[in-house]
């Protein structure tokens, strides 16, 4: 018996919207109706989406806080950019160079993601956040002190150019590719396993989920796309300087993820777009000391959203004036139990999984030092 295939439009809507968006702007660009700043803005938006969705995979779906996302981007930018500047004269073709350097940047970030994923197997919550933060700072320091002819030290490296008429299109194609990979992963049994680890690692282990494998996968994948964003950044800016990839930049990406809603890919995309747009637009309006107004705004938004979504005392209020309920009321929809719910697991509440006490992964050291299982005389 075969039932007719139902296409879940909800699953494709973001591809379509981004595809149409890209198409429109490509046409505008090809017909030379975009100015330099607009093209630059589009490139920045693509980079931000790549970063926020990839960080969202770690924070929103795996439930671990990473404060070193800019570090992965930094590795991608430096290695990809350096590869591009070496390869360009050899290969001659700019597109080929861009492709190869994207792969190099992505893969080198992926490897560093695996390395930083290793501590993630032992540490959780706050401790892991500290390690990722330290990782970002180490990466920055290493590039800052690199020799003149390797990565240029404080002056950084220069990268070859790619026709900016088309660079943002490459960026959005990459965004589509990333969405394809990440959404497919999330909407599969592997995605279920990842969200299961987020909800209860102990239960996930007891249900036979290989936590090590999935954590490494998520960290590697997230780093890969951050690395790709880095290469794109190096092309977009013509130059890479490590001071850009500091802790504040990681926070900026985190703001995008939190603002978009944890575990909500479309939310991350929208907030990345919005924040980047505001940033570039506000930068021309707010100059000098007023420029920090924007940062103040970020900070306030971050604090208020987290408090609103998580404060125990606001729970009643939240349930009553929920965005989803509002839409439901507008559409006068009732809950239909026979309807299959989307495979994506959205959650506005930050998970309760990360407990201070859950510092140790269970399989390594379970007890206080005094309660450690004794070595047996087997």
């Amino acid at each position, binding site marked *: 018996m075969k039932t007719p295939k139902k296409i879940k439009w909800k699953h494709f809507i973001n591809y379509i919207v981004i595809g149409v968006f890209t198409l429109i702007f490509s046409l505008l660009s090809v017909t030379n109706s975009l100015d330099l700043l607009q093209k630059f803005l589009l490139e920045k938006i693509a980079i931000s989406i790549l970063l926020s969705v990839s960080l969202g995979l770690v924070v929103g779906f795996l439930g671990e806080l990473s404060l070193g996302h800019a570090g992965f981007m930094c590795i991608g930018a430096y290695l990809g950019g350096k590869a591009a500047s070496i390869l360009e004269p050899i290969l001659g073709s700019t597109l080929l160079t861009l492709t190869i350097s994207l792969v190099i940047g992505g893969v080198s970030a992926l490897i560093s993601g695996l390395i930083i994923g290793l501590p993630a197997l032992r540490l959780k919550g706050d401790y892991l956040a500290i390690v990722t933060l330290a990782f970002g700072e180490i990466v920055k320091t290493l590039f800052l002190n690199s020799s003149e002819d390797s990565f240029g030290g404080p002056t950084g490296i220069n990268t070859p150019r790619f026709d900016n008429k088309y660079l943002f299109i490459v960026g959005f194609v990459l965004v589509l590719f990333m969405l394809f990979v990440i959404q497919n992963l999330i909407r599969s049994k592997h*995605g279920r396993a990842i969200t*299961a680890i987020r*909800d209860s690692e102990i239960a996930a*282990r*007891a*249900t*036979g*989920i290989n936590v090590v494998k999935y954590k490494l996968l998520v960290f590697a994948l997230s780093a890969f796309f951050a690395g790709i964003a880095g290469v794109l950044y190096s092309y977009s800016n013509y130059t890479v300087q490590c001071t850009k990839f500091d802790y504040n930049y990681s926070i900026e990406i985190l703001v995008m993820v939190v603002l978009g809603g944890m575990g909500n890919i479309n939310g991350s995309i929208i907030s990345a777009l919005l924040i980047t747009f505001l940033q570039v637009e506000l930068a021309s309006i707010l100059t000098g000391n007023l420029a920090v107004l924007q940062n103040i705004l970020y900070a306030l938004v971050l604090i208020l959203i987290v408090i609103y979504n998580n404060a125990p005392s606001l729970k009643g209020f939240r349930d009553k004036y929920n965005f989803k309920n509002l839409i439901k009321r507008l559409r006068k929809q009732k809950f239909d139990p026979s309807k299959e719910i989307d495979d994506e697991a959205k959650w506005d509440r930050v998970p309760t999984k990360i407990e201070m006490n859950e510092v140790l992964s269970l399989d390594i050291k379970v007890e206080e030092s005094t309660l450690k299982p004794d070595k047996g005389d087997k």
Partner: protein
Amino acid sequence: MEYILSTKNLGISFGGLKACENVNMDILPNEIYGLIGPNGAGKTTLFNIITGVYQPTWGDFYLNGERLTGLKQEKICNKGIARTFQNIRLFNNMTVIRNVMVGLTNKSEYKCTFFESMFRFRRHFKVEKEMREKAKEILDIFGLLPERNNLACNLPYGMQRKLEIARALATSPKLLLLDEPAAGMNPNETMELVETIKLIKEKFNIGILLIDHDLKFVSGLCDRITVLNFGQVLAQGKVQDVLNNKDVIEAYIGRESD
């Protein structure tokens, strides 16, 4: 007779404190086996050893004659020992059906690599469909099918217990460990649970090892039991024999003053 689970002199000690010592248990492939004892007797610790949360200090345990000592939790689960928890641990932000589908993840018939999922190979769709059907089948046994699209955290307590068992069964275990399944249930729910457990035994044809305090519950359900006290086996055997054992009565009710 081949035993499904046998423990040989199993024991664990934490900093000199012996939480379990010399535990020898043999469970038949199709029986409900009870593990009882006062608080702190080491029952849950024993569960944690058998499921790989703790590594035993002494002894070994075997599943169908295969030594599993030293394996990781997920490996042991894949070998065929599934468990539930004393304090329910569900994937709260996921729907009921997805909770069960997580249990199906590692089964060989639903094999599908990352790559196949990421790039949507045909196998992915096939596997997903089969998993969904299988999960519905399991949920149906527990009467949870109508609730399948609710979030796990929104279920009433009794259903959460059942869902946890359903999830454990999804891993198609040979042995199911239930840690105080009747805890916090009212008499009606307990009765229902007794029926459910009997049903599981018949339907899945597996061994069940359960912990509980409620002697009535245990004696109504189990074929044989082991009584633990201070980490040591106090008595073992057929339910009635054990419950009439003098030592057991002493541990539970206290010594007769004469």
